[in-house]
């Protein structure tokens, strides 16, 4: 039911590893994210879900430790990203979980709405070459401060030609 990502084999590293959760129905995007995440100079362990419903099931399971951050695709079957965000923010246990929107499209109105609904960052799906640094920037930022950034820091534009 839950596709766990590859985990770091060394135990010593496990303690310092950041648990990252990714919900994306697109297998290729999951692959690129995973590849990019490996390039980020921060120890992480990735867990992926293939749609919103599975994400919410995973988060609702008390056996699972809460991740460091959730990367959330918007356009997913069964339960889309916005719905997931709303549910997370309404859930007292999950409320403080940083949610990073991870989507191809980027519309100001939708982005604003998502920020108002409690998302931390908006990462536009971009070229692979720019992806690792973008993820790194977000994770570092969250390591420093788990609070939501200001609105003008919300969108992480990595669309570099």
């Amino acid at each position: 039911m839950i596709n766990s990502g590859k985990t770091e084999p060394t135990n010593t590293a496990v303690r310092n590893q950041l648990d990252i959760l990714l919900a994306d129905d697109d297998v290729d995007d999951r692959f690129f994210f995973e590849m990019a995440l490996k390039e980020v100079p921060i120890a992480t362990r990735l867990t992926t879900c293939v749609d919103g419903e599975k994400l919410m099931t995973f988060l609702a399971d008390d056996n699972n430790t809460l991740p460091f951050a959730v990367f959330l695709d918007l356009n997913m079957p069964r339960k889309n990203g916005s719905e997931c965000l709303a549910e997370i923010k309404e859930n007292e246990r999950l409320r403080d979980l940083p949610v990073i929107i991870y989507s191809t499209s980027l519309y100001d109105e939708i982005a604003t709405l998502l920020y108002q609904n409690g998302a931390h960052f908006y990462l536009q799906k971009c070229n692979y070459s720019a992806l690792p640094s973008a993820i790194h920037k977000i994770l570092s930022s969250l390591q420093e401060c788990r609070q939501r950034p200001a609105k003008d820091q919300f969108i992480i534009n990595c669309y570099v030609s």
Partner: protein
Amino acid sequence: MEEKISGTEDRGKHPVDVNNLDYRSLFETVPGMYLVLAPDLTILQASDAYLRATLTRREAIIGRGLFDVFPDNPADTSATGVMNLRSSLNYVLKNKVPHTMAVQKYDIRRPDGSFEIRYWSPINTPVMNENHAVKYIIHRVEDVTDFVFLQQKHERSGERREELRQQVRTMDVEVLKRSEEIQRLNEKLERMVAERTRKLEEINKDLSDYKFALDASSIVASTDQFGTITHVNENLCKISKYSREELIGQNHRILNSGYHSRVFFNDLWKTISSGKIWQGEIRNKAKDGQIYWVATTIVPFLDEQGRPFKYLSIRSDITERVHFLDQLKRSEEDYRNLYENTLAAIITTDMLTGKSITVNDAAVQLFGYESRQEFLFNFDMTMHFANPAEIDENTRILKEHGQLHSRVVQMKRQDGSYFWAKIFVKLNSTEEVAQTVLIDITEQVKARENLHDKVTELKISNRELESFNYIASHDLQEPLRKIRNFVSVLLQNEEKNLSQQGQFYLGRMSETSRQMQWLIEDLLTYSRTRNAPRVFEKANLDDILNEVKNSLSSVIAEKNAVIRSEKLFTADVIRFQIFQLLSNLISNALKFSHPDRRPEIIIRGEVVSGSTLNNAKLLFHENYYHLSVKDNGIGFDPKYSERIFGIFERLHPASKYKGTGIGLAICKRIVENHHGMITATGRPGQGAIFDVYLPA
């Protein structure tokens, strides 16, 4: 005369000057009694016999007034001598003819002052000078006193031959009586003549008044019986432009314009030569060729045999009237032709009866009748409305405004088929007659419906295309991004495992996919410039320019370009589109920079009047925001100044200058969204200027 002179040769031997006879001596000694008077009745001369008979001396009377010398006998209260003589002399002076007076008692004053009874028989004769004025009056008298006395003496002596004497006496008295009678009759006659003369003078005056009036008002000419002009008045000279001398003696044909037929003139001559008055209108030609029309009356004058010997023509100039009538006729004809030939149906209707009065063929056809007769007999407009409810409405408008202007109505033909018509109705000034004009616009209505359908279809298909374009390019982005990502991963992780050839292919693939991404992005932008909601807001273009410069800072730095700008303006614009516009124009300028020069881009903005821009597409009286972006790049051939804005239009091979050929098309769309216009001016190697005009 010469013979006579040559026959009296002896005259030459005793020369007597015939030209210098002594007329004075001759006159004085002439046997008769003569007196010569001046017109003022001064005595100028008297013969000796006269002096003797009147007991006067020449020197005592010459130079004195006649009646001074010979007054009436104051003792004779019935004396009429002076009066009768004065009357006779006046008659002579006035009428310039001799006058014989009746025997006249006119007593003579003796030198001692007493009077001697005398009877006279005088004749007064005028002598004229060269001017036909009376120069002298010759007063000749016979002294008949002895004769009269003899009769009385014989009467008294009562001698023999009583009978004869009686007879002579009777005769003499008779003569005297007669002469008195003659005198009386003469006087009466003279009075009658004077009266007649006065009347004639009056008639003469009237005639000359008539002639004056005729000459002043009309064109008058007389001809002889052959038509040869004998008299013309000033008006004829004026209108014909011939002088009197040129006309007189000519045949009247000189004025013929060649317009009238032979029959016309034959008829004229037949009428006047038979002694009847002819009247008609004649077109004549003046000396200079000018044509004029005259209303003409020709009056023939007949001799004792009833044959015309003279024609008098009286005319008046009616040229203007004829021209006016001609124009009226032509104009009437024009209208008639228009009425007959027009495709518009025209019907006139009597407002009282509702009956049609006239109709043209177009109307007969339009309503599907067989003939005008059938139409006029049967037509009733109210039967032809497709929607009878419109009749009342149209009638109301017509009554209210006197006309119906350009109403579109659906009408019904005789056979029940329908047509659309544009209808015009106008009442005449008395509101008795209405003229209705109908134009069949069925085709137009159909065409308009078709057009409307087509436009709607086009709008729908356009919208579909735009959204297809958007969706396609949007959805194409995803797989493309993935391809590019795989290429990146491949390059990053597997390049060392590939052959050199493989690495080259991979490099080309990377480049091509990047090119495709640009294309899709630009297409999306292009599509969005049409579809995105257009929100106009007040924006400062200096701010927008700064944002553009920031977003392009890396390229600007890379190209080492200088961007100069003067203060721009604040305007109501779609902000993000103006950002796009400036961004595209500046990117364009940077992209096509000259390899040998440091790129320099100058941006200007000002408000200008359309009248100063000399561009037919801009309104003369409007103000415009003028934004210009000028570079010193490679420029372009002016023949491409329009094409440059077409979508996918590229002037350079993609290998040399990267681009999708959409950037300037986006600019054009943006400017059009702002109801403005954009132009490009350039020369190869000398840079380019892009001018944007937005309505202020």
